[in-house]
C-alpha cells in the first residue's frame, strides 16, 4: 500500500518535471524515471508481466530512441530558448478542468468492486495463453503494425536519394 503511494507520487512528480524542464535531455531522463515508477505501480497491482514489458519496451527501447533523437537534433542555441509556448495559461486551465472533471465523474460512478485474484506464480502464463488464444487476432495485427512502423521509420528517416 505504502509502496503504491510512493510509486504514484514519484510518477506524478516526474511527470510534472518532464513537461517543465528546460533541457530536453533532462526531460528524457525524467521520462525514464516516470516509466520506471509506472512499472512499479504495475507490479503493486498484480500485473507483473505488464511491468516487465513496460521496462523492457518503454524504458529500454523508447527512451533510447528518444535519447538518440534528442542528441541528433540538439543545437547550441536551443539551450537558451523557452521551452514552453505562450498558451501556458489557457492550457493549465483546460488541463485542470479536464482532470477535475474526470475525477469528479469517477466519484459519481457506482462501480461494483471485486478484487482480482492473481496467480501466485505470476501472470505470465495466463497472459501468454490469452494472447495466443483469445486475443490472437489483435496479437497478429499488432505485429504487422510494428513491421509497418519499422519500415516507415526507416523510409522517413533514411538518407535522401536511397
Amino acid at each position, binding site marked *: 500500500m505504502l509502496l503504491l503511494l510512493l510509486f504514484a507520487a514519484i510518477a506524478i512528480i516526474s511527470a510534472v518535471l518532464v513537461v517543465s524542464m528546460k533541457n530536453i535531455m533532462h526531460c528524457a531522463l525524467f521520462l525514464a524515471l516516470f516509466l520506471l515508477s509506472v512499472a512499479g505501480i504495475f507490479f503493486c497491482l498484480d500485473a507483473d508481466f505488464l511491468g516487465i514489458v513496460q521496462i523492457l519496451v518503454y524504458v529500454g527501447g523508447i527512451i533510447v530512441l528518444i535519447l538518440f533523437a534528442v542528441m541528433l537534433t540538439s543545437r547550441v542555441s536551443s539551450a537558451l530558448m523557452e521551452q514552453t509556448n505562450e498558451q501556458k495559461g489557457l492550457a493549465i486551465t483546460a488541463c485542470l478542468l*479536464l482532470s477535475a472533471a474526470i475525477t469528479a465523474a469517477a466519484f459519481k460512478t457506482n462501480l461494483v468492486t471485486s478484487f482480482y485474484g492473481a496467480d501466485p506464480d505470476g501472470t505470465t502464463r495466463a497472459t501468454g495463453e490469452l494472447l495466443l488464444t483469445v486475443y490472437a487476432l489483435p496479437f497478429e495485427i499488432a505485429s504487422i503494425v510494428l513491421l509497418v512502423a519499422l519500415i516507415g521509420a526507416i523510409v522517413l528517416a533514411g538518407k535522401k536519394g536511397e
Partner: protein
Amino acid sequence: MINYAYIIPFLPLAAFAVNIFFGKKLKGASAYIGIAAISASFLMSLSIFFAFLGGAQRFEVNPEWLNLGAVKFGMGFLVDGMTSVMLIVVTLVSLLVQIYSIGYMHGDPRYPRYYAYLGLFTFSMLLLVIANNFAMMFVSWELVGVSSYLLIGFWFEKKSASDAGKKAFITNKFGDFGFSIGIMMIFAFCGTLNFGEVSNAIAKGALSGSTLTLAGILVFCGAIGKSAQFPLHVWLPDAMEGPTPVSALIHAATMVAAGVYLVARTYFLYAASPTASAVVAYTGVFTAFFAATMALVATDIKRVLAFSTVSQLGYMIMALGVGGFTAGMFHLTTHAFFKALLFLGAGSVIHGAATQDIREMGGLGKHMKITMVTFFIACLAIAGIPPFSGFYSKDEVLLAAFNYSKPIYIAATFTAFMTAFYMFRLFFRTFTGEMRTKLDPHESPFTMTIPLMVLAVLSVVAGWLFVQGHAFETLVHFKEGAAEEGSLLVVWISIAASVLGIGLASAIYVFKVVPDGYFRNKFPGIHKVLINKWYVDEFYDRTVIKPSLNLARRFFSFDSKYVDGAVNLTGIINVIISKLHNIFDKAAVDGAVNGVAAAAQGGGGILRRVQTGLVQNYMLILVAGAALAVVVFFFIK
C-alpha cells in the same frame, strides 16, 4: 352618283398630296395632276347637279363618328339642291383658275407648291360645302382659312405679301372666335351639331328667344370674318398681294362665299329670329355701301375689284338677312362667274402690261382684244344690265330688300349706282383712251384667254338659264319659298341706276365732259377719307394691334425675367442637388459598400487567425471541448 359625293373633295386632296411630296420631281406636270383631279370632281358635281335638276331629293349620310354615351357625333355629308349648285361653282371656277395658272404662274420657282395649295384649298372648300354638321363645317372653315393664308402669302419674300397672309388669317380668327362660341351655344341647347337635328330642335323650341338671337349673331360672326363684312373687311384689300388667279378663286368665287353659304346653311337660326336676321341685313347693306365708296377712288386694279367683292358680298348677306334666301344664293352663283372673270381679266392685264396702277394704263384695248371684250361683258354683268346674269340676280336681291325695308332698299339701289360707276371707271381707264405711260402690252397666251372666254359665256347665260322654269328656286329654297312677285317698279329703278352709273363714268372718262380731277379737287376731305379706306386700318392699329403688341412685350419681359429666371433657378438647384447627391453617393453609398467590404475583410482578418498553423492551438481547443463534454455529460443532466 349622289351616294359618292363624299369622294369629290378627296380628289383635289390627293392632288395636293402628290404635288406636295413629289412636286420637285414633277415640276410642270404638277399642274396637269391638279387639273385632272379637279376635272374629275367637276364632272361628278355636274352629274349630281343634273340629278337634282331632275328632281332628286335631299340626301344625307351620317355615320357615327364619336359616341360619348349621352351625345353622339356623326361625320357624314349632306347633298341637296344648294349643295349641288355650290359644288358646280367651286369645281368649275377652280378648274378654270388652274388652267389659267398654267400661263400666269409660268416660270415661278414654286410652281408645284402653288398647285398643291390650290388642291388643298379646293379640298377644304368642297368639304365645307358637303358638311352636314357644325363641327365638320368649322374644321373645313379653318382649313379654308389656312389654305388662303398659304396662298395669299405665296410670294412670301415680299414683306407686304406675308403680312397680308397673316392679316387675313388673324382677322378671320376674330370671326371664328364668335363662330365657335355660337357653335358651343347651339350644342349646349340643342344637344347635337347636325344641321338637320338642330333645325328640328329649334322648331321644337329647344333654343329660342334671346339665346337663339345671340347664337345666330355669334355664328354670323364667322361669316363676317370670312366674307369680309364690316368691321372685319380689312383683310380683303390687302389679300390682293397674292397671285391674281388666287384672288380670282378665293376672293371672288369661293372662300368669301363660304360665309354666305354658312348663313344659308344655318338659315333656320335666322328664320326663327327676326333680330338676328336684322343684324345680318344691316351689316350686309352697310358693308355694301361702305365698300362701294372706297372703290370709287382706288387706283390699283385689284384693289378696286377687292372693294367690289366686299360690296357684292354685302349684297348677298343683305339678301339673306331680308329674307331673300334664293336671291342671295343666286347672286352668289352669278357673282362667282363674273367676279372670277374680272379678276382673271385683271390678271391678264397685269401679265400683259406689267403694271397694276390704272393711272399708268390706258388704251390697252387695242392690243388685248380678248381681254377687253371679256372684261366688258363682266362689267355689264356686275352693273346689272339685262340680259346679263348679274341683272337677274341683283334684281331679285333688290326686290327682297324692297319688300323688307325701304331704307335698306334705297341704300342698296344707290350702291348699285356706285357699282356701275366705279366698274366702268375701271374699264375706261384701263382699256380705252391713250396710253398714259410707256408700256409694251401683249395679249396673254391661250391658256389664260380660254378660261376668260368660258367665264364670259357663263356671265351672259347663267342668269337667264337659271330662271327658266324657276329652276334655281326649285334647287335652292328655304321651306316652301313663296316666289316673290316681281315688281316692275323695282326692275326699272335698278336698270335706271345702272345706266346712270355707266353714263356718269363715260362722261368723266370717255367724253371728258367733266375734267379728270374735278371731284377730287372739289371735295378734298371726302377724297382723302375714301382713299385711306375710312381710316379703319389705322383705327384698328391704334386700338387693337398696338395694345396687343405692348401686352405681348410686357409678357415677354416678365417671362424672360421671372419665368426664365425660375427655370434657370430650378436648373441651378438641380445642379446643386446633383452635387449633393454626388457627395452622398461617394460618402454614404460608396462608403457603405466599402464598409461592407472592409467588414468582410476585417472579419476575415480576425477569423483567419484561427488558422494559426500550429497544431497545439487546435489541440488546446479540442482538450477544452473534451473537458466541457465530460462536465456536461456527467454533471448537467
